[in-house]
């Protein structure tokens, strides 16, 4: 399913209904997913598509969290396992394991990468002021990847920075 196309259909503000489902949109939309028992979110406009897990082709001598590359309609897309990258939970590959393909458009280039997560949950509508800074108390996820925290009912969702997620592995490789 193509989330991008769906997201484009939904106007940013107001009450709407698509295929009988009523909903209200306001603010920005974020796609949430789970890693182990924790919830994370990314800007939905960066999401290219959500695919089921397939075994990628190994990139020789790459860090373990880089699972390899896949062919997405003729484009070679690297696959990164976020669970391994952030050391959260077990990197198991089951039927519900999905790959979120994110495209980040830079000034001069765009990069497309797939990220392995345990499951995709839902889409959050969040106003900018609802995003709170994350406390600097350690944790496995390095701070440069965290944009902020979002309260979703009883849960706290960590909002990730897509640009930094895609840049990182150059530094990691040399480390």
């Amino acid at each position: 399913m193509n989330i991008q196309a769906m997201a484009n259909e939904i106007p940013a503000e107001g009450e709407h209904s698509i295929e009988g489902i009523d909903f209200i949109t306001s603010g920005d939309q974020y796609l949430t997913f789970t890693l182990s028992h924790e919830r994370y979110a990314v800007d939905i406009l960066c999401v290219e598509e959500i695919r089921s897990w397939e075994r990628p082709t190994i990139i020789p001598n790459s860090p373990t969290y880089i699972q390899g590359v896949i062919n997405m309609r003729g484009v070679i897309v690297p696959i990164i396992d976020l669970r391994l990258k952030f050391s959260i939970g077990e990197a198991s590959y089951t039927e519900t394991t999905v790959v979120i393909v994110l495209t980040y458009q830079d000034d001069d280039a765009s990069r497309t990468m797939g990220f392995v997560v345990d499951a995709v949950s839902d889409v959050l509508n969040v106003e900018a002021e609802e995003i709170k800074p994350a406390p600097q108390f350690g944790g496995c996820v390095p701070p440069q990847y965290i944009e902020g925290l979002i309260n979703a009912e009883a849960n706290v969702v960590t909002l990730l920075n897509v640009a930094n997620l895609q840049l990182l592995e150059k530094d990691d490789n040399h480390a």
Partner: protein
Amino acid sequence: MTVDLSQFIPSFLEESFEGLELMESGLLNLQEGDSELIHSIFRAAHSIKGGAGTFGFENVTDFTHLVETLLDEMRDGRREITSEDTEILLESVDCIRLLIEAARDGEEYDNEKIEQTSKRLTATLDGKDNSKEACVNTEEVIKSPNDVEYLIHFVPELSLAKTGNDPIFLFTALAELGVLTIEADSSSLPALNDIDPLELYLSWQLKLISSASIDDIKEIFEWVEDECELDIIIIDKDNSAPSSTVQDAEQSSNEQVKEVKETQEVEVSSLTDTPNPSEVTKESTAAIKPKAKSDVGSIRVGVDKVDSLINLVGELVITQSMLSELGSDFDMSKVDRLTNGLEQLLQNTKELQESVMRIRMLPISFAFNRFPRLVHDLANKTGKDMELVIKGEQTELDKTVMEQIGDPLVHLIRNAVDHGIESSEVRLANGKPKQGVISLDAYHQGGNIVIEISDDGGGIDRENVFSKAVEKGLVDANATLTDSQVYDLLFEPGFSTAAEVTDISGRGVGMDVVKRNIQALGGRIQVDSTPGEGSTFKVNLPLTLAILDGQLVKVGTETYIIPLISIVESLQIEKEFLNRVSGDMDLYRLRDDNVPILPIYQLFNINTQCTDLDNALLVVVESDGQKVGLMVDDLLAQQQVVIKSLKDNYQQVLGISGATILGDGSVAMILDIPGMIQMALEKAQRIQLKKYPNHTDKVGEYI
């Protein structure tokens, strides 16, 4: 009628660059009496000038005008063709190129150089005027600083506007030359019912007060002169010309502008504010700037290539309809026809692929064309006498490869001029002809193109290279190297044997870059040299960067592709030829060579069952004259693969040159043989460093 001219700028630029190339090669071959050649040079200059004027690149127009005047004199036989003039003209070609490039990129240009050259041009032109016959042509009279009044009678044909010409542009151009008074004659205008809106019924009387020559004015009408009646009469001020306009001319310019407004019946927009050409230029260059940044480039393709493509597509359609008809009611009795059909489809696809690739192919003359000029300039600079012989310029090469091979070739040629060819005295003393020969040859060999740059100079001094390398610490003084290993040292960074640094070469940067560029294109470079007889640099390049012939191999669960070009042979290891030497290194005796074995599973950390050397499959590959045996689990098919970059979404991976998508949709990595050898070297060095941390000598320089 307003047309957005900016859309034609890219094709103007392209044509101009082609014109410049034509001028350059023409000038280099220019000899007295070759009127056809002068004509073609003149035509090239003229169309650049015309086009530049149309698009408002006035600096180009002005400069080219000088060049054209000089060429015109040569064309008419009024001026002898001397080498000095040719030199100035060549320099002017450079200047025009500079100006056009500046116009394209909307950047500043080296004004000083342009001015200097244009001064020299003017001086050359004047020099002719002062000396020689007193050929009093109108030009000379008009060159006096005083303004002259012209009376221009311009009666265009009815169809003038249909040819894309607009009198307003002509008048605007005239107005830039001086003060212009326009009077339209509408007497031949038919009744409204009879008017064909596409035809031009007006004629004009123009009065121009300007210091420009009559040729300048004719120039403006050059594009329309066949489609109009044009009379240009000079009313000299000193003559007691009867008309009252003479007095008008002596009035202040303000009043004249007023008069223009009063008398003109055709509103010439922006007529009064055009005398600020710099602003116009700025505007137009700013407009094209974004286009130049995202330079997509274009190819001119011969019609025959397109026709053959269309033919092939036609055949493909036929095959497709044949197959789908077969599929609509298929039973086993038709299996033969199906196999035939599929075979035909395979053939069609292959031919189509080749045909599409051919579209990207250009004759290498595009890259070679600039070298005669380069050698000519370098010969002047160094004072050496030499000629360049070009062969095989029709050999075709992929456009991308061509663009990237230009600079390395320039470097190799500079090198041949500076280090290769000796001075005339030395040559004569050695019993060689005075004139040195640098030859440039291109030909196809297998799936590769080979470019040879050879000179008949002194050759490479093996001892000199070796001692320099020892001095720089690149090799051990006691090492025994083969000739080719010594020549390879030339490509080491920072290496130079030139006794003194010249501005041509000798700084020791360059040859390593040349090698790196060639390797980046998937090619290799070899050097061959005979002392006293000259050296040859042989550049081997793949024909295209997009498609590669590959051997598919299996290692563990992964499929890899080894470029066919680097494979020497594939074999099954026989135990008796296996040798373990120097501790931990496995060598395989291949006839006289000892080939080190690199198991891919070790290099890439892949799990596999096949770790036993005995009876394993070995693909012997070669890079830089170094042979290694890659151990693989299995050999699969050979096929052509489309190269996809890993860099787009990821980054360069050591030992991998790219990826491709196989028939089943999965991704396979393409091996980068030089990179893998490098990896193995570094790995060996790390191990040795670990074992002997104090032993810091360069070990493993040659595996």
